[in-house]
């Protein structure tokens, strides 16, 4: 069912090593700041790994991902606050709700193509933003202040967390959020790899690269695009819920344009459409952000320079560049062994896979 091959084994080995390292990090006594930043990295990497399915693999110019993220976060928070249910349960419900929400968005947008999809999905996100910040009606009173249903411009808070404070104590609770977000990223990444290498992934790519040919082979463009939209929404919504539970607050700023551009830059830097691209991009952009924190005045220029450099020097993103280096290195090693015949055979088997 799923395509396998040398790259699959390489990716699996690399993934296992990466997970082992990430699991070990909290035991090495890092600072709380480091743990917090890695938690945020896991959350953003989850979002962009799913966005990559829609944007990079299926070629849909959707900017709705942060709207879905916000839906998941607000749904989790609201269920915790208004229904008083456990945030764990709320998180799962929010994930499922995010699928329905994305289907509604998809039904409205996917009849369109190209930049029109981008415009309409961005408009939906901005409408959500406006609905939240113009929510001034008093939903309930708390002391002398009235609380809005969505939290309004202040943000939605006081819906609790995942219980790690009680479970692990105030000094260690961040590790609970850390492992939760890591677990989410692992699931989302496995899901993403599975989709990309399944027949569904080939269908998405066919409709991206040559829609007329794909349709002539019996692929229903609208149905497949709606499918990828819905599938990517589940983990995005969960990421929103984890974000809300981690920070114990969620506000309209998650729908802001600077954050949207920050996440898009992760995909561009990492390599659109590549399985490792979003994770690598998230890591590079967050590292760049970290490195430039002491140079506030030129930070935005630094971002710009980084993105321009990546686009010009590595048009297939950092993941594409690494892929080329990997292939070159492998050829050199095999050539040293005199195994050019085996290399040719392997090239044949892996040829299709390199395109991902």
């Amino acid at each position, binding site marked *: 069912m799923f395509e396998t091959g040398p790259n699959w084994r390489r990716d699996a080995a690399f993934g296992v090593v990466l997970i082992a390292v990430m699991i070990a990090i909290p035991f090495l006594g890092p*600072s709380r*700041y480091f743990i917090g930043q890695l938690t945020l990295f896991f959350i953003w990497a989850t979002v962009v790994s799913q966005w990559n399915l829609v944007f990079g693999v299926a070629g849909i110019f959707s900017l709705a991902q942060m709207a879905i993220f916000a839906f998941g976060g607000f749904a989790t928070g609201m269920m915790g606050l208004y229904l008083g249910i456990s945030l764990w349960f709320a998180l799962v419900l929010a994930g499922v709700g995010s699928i329905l929400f994305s289907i509604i968005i998809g039904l409205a947008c996917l009849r369109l193509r190209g930049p029109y999809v981008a415009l309409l999905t961005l408009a939906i996100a901005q409408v959500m933003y406006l609905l939240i910040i113009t929510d001034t009606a008093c939903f309930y009173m708390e002391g*002398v202040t*009235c609380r809005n249903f969505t939290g309004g*411009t202040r*943000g939605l808070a006081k819906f609790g967390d995942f219980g790690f404070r009680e479970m692990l104590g105030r000094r260690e609770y961040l590790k609970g959020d850390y492992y939760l977000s890591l677990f989410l990223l692992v699931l989302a990444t496995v899901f993403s790899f599975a989709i990309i290498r399944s027949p569904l992934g080939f269908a998405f790519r066919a409709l991206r690269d040559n829609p007329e040919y794909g349709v002539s082979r019996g692929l229903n463009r609208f149905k497949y695009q709606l499918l990828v939209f819905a599938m990517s929404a589940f983990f995005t919504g969960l990421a929103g819920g984890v974000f809300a539970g981690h920070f*114990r607050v969620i506000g309209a700023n998650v729908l802001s344009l*600077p954050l949207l551009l920050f996440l898009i830059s992760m995909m561009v830097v990492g390599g659109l459409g590549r399985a490792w691209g979003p994770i690598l991009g998230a890591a590079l952009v967050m590292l760049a952000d970290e490195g430039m924190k002491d140079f*506030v005045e030129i930070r935005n220029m630094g971002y710009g320079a980084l993105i321009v450099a990546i686009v010009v020097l590595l048009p297939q993103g950092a993941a594409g560049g690494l892929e080329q280096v990997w292939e070159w290195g492998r050829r050199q090693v095999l050539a040293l062994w005199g195994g050019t015949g085996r290399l040719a055979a392997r090239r044949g088997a892996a040829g299709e896979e390199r395109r991902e």
Partner: protein
Amino acid sequence: MIIRRRGTRREEGARKRFIASRRNFMKGAGLAGFGAAAMSSGLLADINDGVRAEGEPIPVGGCVPLTGWAAADGLSFKSGLELACEEINMMGGILGRPLAPVFEDSKEQGADNIIPAMQRLLDRHEVHAIINGYNTGAVTAEYDTIADAGVPYIHHNTDIVHHETVGSDPELYFSNFMADPAEYWYGEGFMKFISDLNDTGKWEAPNRKVAIVTGSQNYSVVIANAMRDSAEKYGWEISLYETVVVPISEWGPTLQKIRNDPPAAIAITHWVPQDLAQFMMQFVPNPTPSLVYMQYGPLLAAFREIGKEATNGVLFATVVGALQDEIGQDYFQRFNSKFGESASPLTGSQPYDSCHYWAIASAMAGGTGAPGEFEQNEKVCDRIRRNIYRGVQGATAFVLPYQAARTYPTETRDASLGMPHQFLQIQNHLEQGKLIAPEPYETAAFQIPPWISG
């Protein structure tokens, strides 16, 4: 006797050099004009007993928006903290240890920016205090980060949520201080202000009606609701409570409602200067005999530049900011001479004052505490709670259990126990607003607005 902690104990010997006295310090520093402003800070120089600030530096953090929509204010906060640290260091720092300000950018604010920035200050720089202007969008979620570290966190978020959070668990949030009154006090303060104007004969209210117009942001809504809820207490009746969708430039429908039932006062709690200027430009050609009060926007030059003559007579207020008295003027001069005439000392005064009284409290407590040194930080926070500080913003005294600055004259009748809720009036659109209340800080008399006096 001052007990000094490990790391702050002064080595006796060659390294120890004294300056003769506080008077000499001020003279030497060229701060003769420091005058009354130095009265509280002079206490620090006395405690320091003439020692120079040559010990191990104490990192002091500022989590301020250096980029994003609030960057202009953020740079003022940064300047204010830098100026305070410099002055404190000239007085010998804290028991001989100089202050070293470090900053993290809270960018567009919100919990995802504020919490990592504060955690970075605590982990990387190991700051002994975080002293901010304002940050929005975290809804006090950052208090837990502070509670885990225990260092004093002094901010000016002007947010009533602070009361609820600290009040809910004063022991856990012992080091979280809001150094200005909550926005709620704008509401009741306004009702008291117009009542005082009427009672003292400075203005004769044509009726007891107030029209309230609010924007859509929580800040505006909380103030509008507080006005509405406190109106009856001062004998006023709300004739109109209107929520407008912002941004707004077309005020026709709202003005028509106001003209249909002219109130004694119109209070607009929406704060964007260009929107407010548009209101005045549309109101003045066909005015009602009402006072016009507006929130925040008239503090900014853009309001007067857009509205021009139409803005003369407008009232506005701030619960925190440098006063225009002798102490304030000295501060303005020092601030502008260091950072240039285009710098904004009004907002920079927030971390400036806070840093001064944190330094005094720390010196009195025997030194500062690093993250995790809860016992020492408890002592510092206890001093902050108990001390009353007279700075460039007036008096700072914290109300317990929620540890927010008390506002004067609404919360206390004693000007020495509260931060003045300053009411200003634009009397000439070419100049900044004049401070007309409260006593004894006012620098100009209230004037009947031109659309009423004719």
